């Protein structure tokens, strides 16, 4: 692999984001700002219990409250649903997919489960009225622990007959032989704690009946307007062509808005039922109970190696807490990590078992990284632990086992084909930036002097699979959708350009990056391109934004549509210049005849010419517009080397990151500043898991971290300076060589930080610190180790 040539034109250059002026001056259109005159404000009555039979719901008092227009129970609305809320990944043939109705009818299964819905004329009136709905519950035992749940003593879904939603087991290579042959087997249990996504903008939805179409216009704070439209058409029985879904400015998602939620179905059904607009915005505490959570895996790993540090294989036994219901991709989230346990390492065999478990907690689903952070954490942690066991430097162990750059494309043991990569280049760059040897020397010094503040060094040489694309592969995994993406390009008569994309940005800056792609391809000015998105009536086809897919698939579609425009324009140019099409050359927006430099037409000239349509080739339509649907042949595999130096105060348990270096290889870069922003945000979110965040339930199933008072989302003041850099090894699965960057930082950083914390404490006998590595967890790990117990 070689680095790409210095890019020309707009690609590869930092352009200030077109989106930012309105965002930073408070002129964005959030769903909650959408004016819907006469709208009814909706609020759900939510269960205060984790698990209980609903024995009675008395709505009579609530109906009498000032401003209240209607109150419905779950049973009242059963005839509004054609089917239950969707789960789109049938991970095994016998996966249990119990129904998930927008409001509970028989029993509640987590704190925050909706039981009834109140509609009133103002937000204040509805907030007052919900307390007057009287629900009688017969409490049942909460099941908050996965291993308890697997005993099936208390069933979350009685009809399913078990809390085991699915079991997926798979191995390849001669696993037993490999483990028999191994000189060293390291066994570890890692707890990948439950997290809450915490997008800045809460979820919100506004549904307005549209008298023109006889249908409905839905604004929703969603990542997936296209998928939402299809799914709600199915759930609510609204004809798809009568439902327009708009994702206006959306303030972050991280996977939490990659879903089809009860409140969206309720708002649509109730707007239909009452013939009035319906509006709903969650409060933060409500969202913490009713918007999906992430992670929550127990990971039992064994890794087998030779005494000289050759990794032979691993066994991974993963239990994934799915929560109470299957949301859109609840079942599949662990599967997205299933292939990634080998990471960048060559080995002979692997064994994997994933058990999806129902509990009486908020459903989990895709949260930034979705499966890959879990896999990456486990493998990068156990490689460090293996190095410690072998007495090897952890980077030396990695070098000994990783795929070298000459070996690409490389089929890993789980069957994926890594198309490209250069782990040596990224690592060499990162090691030089980090000052690895000096930090190791300081570490030795602190250990020798018994400094209460110890220094640890953590490594994460990660890779991930992203750019959810190959539709055939997704189909083979029983994922009930494709992974293509659509774009169209409109050449306007006055020479400017509209790009329509099926991706749905919610902070990523697609308007800017797609403008750069189109400007570069068409040879027009960056400011002459606008990008339309997030409205199913404007962008009629799309698979939306998640899984670091937008650039790899959606950006590729823009590029591809532009190539079709150029092909059409070339024919028009040949016609007007009276030259053979083969003699037409295109560069920087101008078509010229080879050998006759004065005979030329700009792409703007041609756009106007086909608009006038006075003179164009007989065998084509008078239009340069084009659309493209692309479906890349493979996932993409960003990688990189992240290095963390952490100071751990052994007296207080405080961890302070002193140095954080990341060198990411996300392939070809469109806008360096946007890429850097994604890396910074990703690092913050991954470090947040390592140091700060955890959703905690008590044994009764109450969410103890029910607000931002107890759920510690770090601010800029809590995070270190990030030293970031890149290498560029182009992907081969798309013509632009791009790989995707939305999740890389999150996937990579968590194990780098925890490895650093554990590395600092190894001389004290500590082998693991449960995440988050908070002062309490660090101190307790030290106490356990120094008191002779296991950490």
């Amino acid at each position, binding site marked *: 692999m070689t680095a790409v040539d210095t890019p020309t034109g707009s690609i590869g250059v930092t352009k200030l984001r077109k989106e930012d002026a309105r965002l930073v001056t408070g002129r964005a259109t959030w769903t909650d700002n959408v004016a819907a005159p006469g709208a009814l404000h909706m609020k759900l009555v939510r269960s205060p219990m984790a698990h209980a039979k609903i024995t009675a719901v008395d709505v009579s008092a609530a109906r009498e409250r000032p401003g209240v227009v209607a109150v419905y129970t779950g049973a009242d609305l059963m005839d509004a649903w054609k089917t239950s809320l969707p789960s789109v990944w049938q991970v095994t043939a016998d996966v249990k997919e119990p129904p998930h109705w927008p409001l509970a009818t028989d029993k509640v299964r987590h704190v925050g489960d909706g039981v009834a819905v109140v509609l009133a004329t103002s937000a204040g009136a509805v907030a007052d009225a919900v307390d007057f709905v009287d629900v009688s519950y017969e409490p049942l035992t909460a099941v908050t622990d996965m291993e308890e749940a697997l005993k099936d003593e208390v069933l979350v879904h009685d009809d399913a007959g078990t809390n085991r939603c699915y079991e997926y087991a798979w191995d390849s290579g001669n696993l037993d032989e490999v483990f028999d042959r191994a000189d060293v087997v390291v066994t570890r249990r890692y707890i990948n704690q439950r997290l809450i996504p915490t997008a800045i903008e809460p979820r919100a939805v506004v549904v307005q009946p549209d008298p023109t179409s006889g249908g409905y216009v839905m604004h929703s704070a969603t990542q997936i307007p296209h998928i939402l439209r299809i799914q709600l058409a199915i759930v609510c029985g609204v004809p798809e062509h009568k439902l327009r879904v708009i994702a206006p400015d959306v303030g972050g998602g991280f996977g939490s808005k990659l879903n089809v939620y009860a409140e969206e179905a309720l708002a649509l059904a109730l707007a239909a039922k009452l013939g009035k607009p319906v509006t709903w915005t969650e409060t933060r505490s409500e969202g913490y109970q009713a918007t999906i959570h992430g992670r929550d895996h127990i990971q039992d790993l064994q890794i087998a190696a030779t005494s000289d540090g050759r990794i032979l294989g691993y066994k991974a036994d993963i239990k994934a807490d799915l929560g109470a219901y299957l949301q859109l991709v609840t079942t599949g989230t662990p599967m997205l990590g299933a292939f990634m346990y080998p990471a960048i390492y060559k080995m002979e065999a692997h064994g994997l078992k994933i058990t999806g478990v129902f509990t009486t907690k908020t459903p989990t689903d895709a949260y930034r990284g979705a499966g890959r952070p879990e896999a990456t954490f486990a493998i990068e942690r156990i490689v460090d632990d293996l190095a410690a066991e072998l007495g090897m430097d952890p980077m030396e162990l990695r070098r000994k086992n990783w795929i070298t750059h000459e070996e690409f494309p490389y089929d890993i043991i789980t069957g994926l084909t890594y198309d490209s990569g250069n782990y040596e280049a990224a690592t060499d760059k990162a090691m030089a930036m980090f000052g690895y040897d000096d930090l190791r020397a300081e570490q030795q010094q602190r250990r020798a002097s018994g400094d209460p503040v110890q220094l640890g060094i953590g490594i994460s040489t990660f890779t991930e699979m992203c750019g959810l694309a190959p539709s055939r592969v997704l189909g083979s995994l029983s994922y009930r959708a494709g992974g293509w993406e659509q774009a169209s390009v409109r050449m306007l008569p006055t020479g400017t350009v509209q790009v329509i994309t099926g991706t749905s940005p919610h902070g990523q800056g697609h308007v800017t990056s797609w403008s750069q792609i189109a400007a570069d391809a068409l040879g027009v000015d960056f400011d002459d391109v606008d990008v339309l998105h997030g409205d199913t009536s404007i962008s009629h086809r799309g698979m939306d934004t998640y899984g670091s897919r937008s650039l790899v698939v959606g950006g590729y579609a823009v590029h591809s549509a532009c190539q079709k425009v150029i092909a059409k324009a070339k024919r028009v140019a040949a016609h007007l210049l009276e030259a053979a099409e083969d003699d037409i050359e295109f560069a920087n927006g101008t078509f010229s005849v080879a050998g006759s430099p004065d005979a030329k037409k700009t792409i703007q000239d041609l756009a106007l010419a086909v608009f006038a349509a006075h003179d164009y080739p007989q065998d084509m339509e008078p239009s340069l517009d084009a659309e493209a649907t692309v479906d890349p042949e493979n996932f993409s595999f960003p990688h990189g080397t992240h290095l963390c130096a952490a100071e751990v105060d052994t007296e207080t*348990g405080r961890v302070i990151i002193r140095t954080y270096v990341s060198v990411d290889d996300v392939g070809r870069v469109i806008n360096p500043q946007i890429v850097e922003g994604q890396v910074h945000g990703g690092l913050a979110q991954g470090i947040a898991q390592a140091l700060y965040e955890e959703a905690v339930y008590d044994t009764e199933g109450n969410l103890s971290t029910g607000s931002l008072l107890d759920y510690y989302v770090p601010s800029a*003041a809590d995070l270190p300076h990030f030293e970031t850099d890149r290498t560029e090894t182009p992907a081969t699965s798309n013509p632009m060589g791009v790989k995707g960057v939305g999740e890389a930082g999150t996937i990579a950083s968590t194990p780098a930080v925890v490895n650093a914390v554990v590395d600092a404490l190894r001389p004290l006998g500590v082998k693991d610190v449960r995440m988050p590595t908070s002062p309490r967890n660090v101190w307790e790990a030290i106490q356990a180790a120094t008191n002779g117990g296991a950490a």
Partner: protein
Amino acid sequence: MIPATFDYIRAGSVDEAIAALTEHGDEAKLLAGGHSLLPLMKLRLASPEVLVDLGRVDALRGVCELDDGRLSIGAMTSHQDVIDNDLVRQHCGVLADVTRKVGDAQVRHRGTIGGAMAHGDAASDLPAALLALDGTVMVQGPSGRREITAADLFVDYLSTSVNDDEVITEVRVPKLDGNWGWNYQKFGRVAQAWAIVGSLGLVKRANGSIEEARVGLTHMGTIPLRATAVEQALAGTSTDGIADAAEHAAEGTSPPTDLSATSEFREHLARVLTKRALQAAAG
């Protein structure tokens, strides 16, 4: 996040506020900076029927020197104005330094010193500081004015000895001479949050030894506390004794267990943080 319905009275003076409190009794709450009360109301954990807003009572803002040599800080003085006040910085810098660690910039610009004392949260920074300074509050009610020492002010979890019909009008703190040093060790999960444990060390040095030491503890019980055993162990000793004395920091405390810390970990932190605070204060 919409509070239950309430009536709102804007007090033009302390007397008007007292009259409103007298009329509405325990249905009324005073509104100062609103950074504790309003979130509680929005979460519907508090739903007073009447709010009496002190925001326009300008007489309650500002800092002056009292005849007895102490500083008087108007109860409605914002945290930021305390931090920026020249008299405070010159004569009681410890109060400015502790206040600098309260909340975030928004809280410091809206929240008030009187409000922090009235809320009486053992987890917030200023009550422990007032206690360590042997400060007082002046309160005014229907039967006149009275002064309450910090030791008498904080009586239980979020509860003070200020009566329902009384208004805190001033916070009074001593001037500290140049022999005093101080350090506040605020230990939290994130930069802008309540302390898991905080320890404020104040040390008066004379002739190379410790003449007097005081320690205020944050979040080590239902009320702010003094580590009196540490103070007694250090009086008249050299700074070499700090580490040993700090081992007594958790004596007489009954710290809570929550997600951030067990009571055992809090006791441990109190010892470590008190050692560090006193060493820095003495250094």
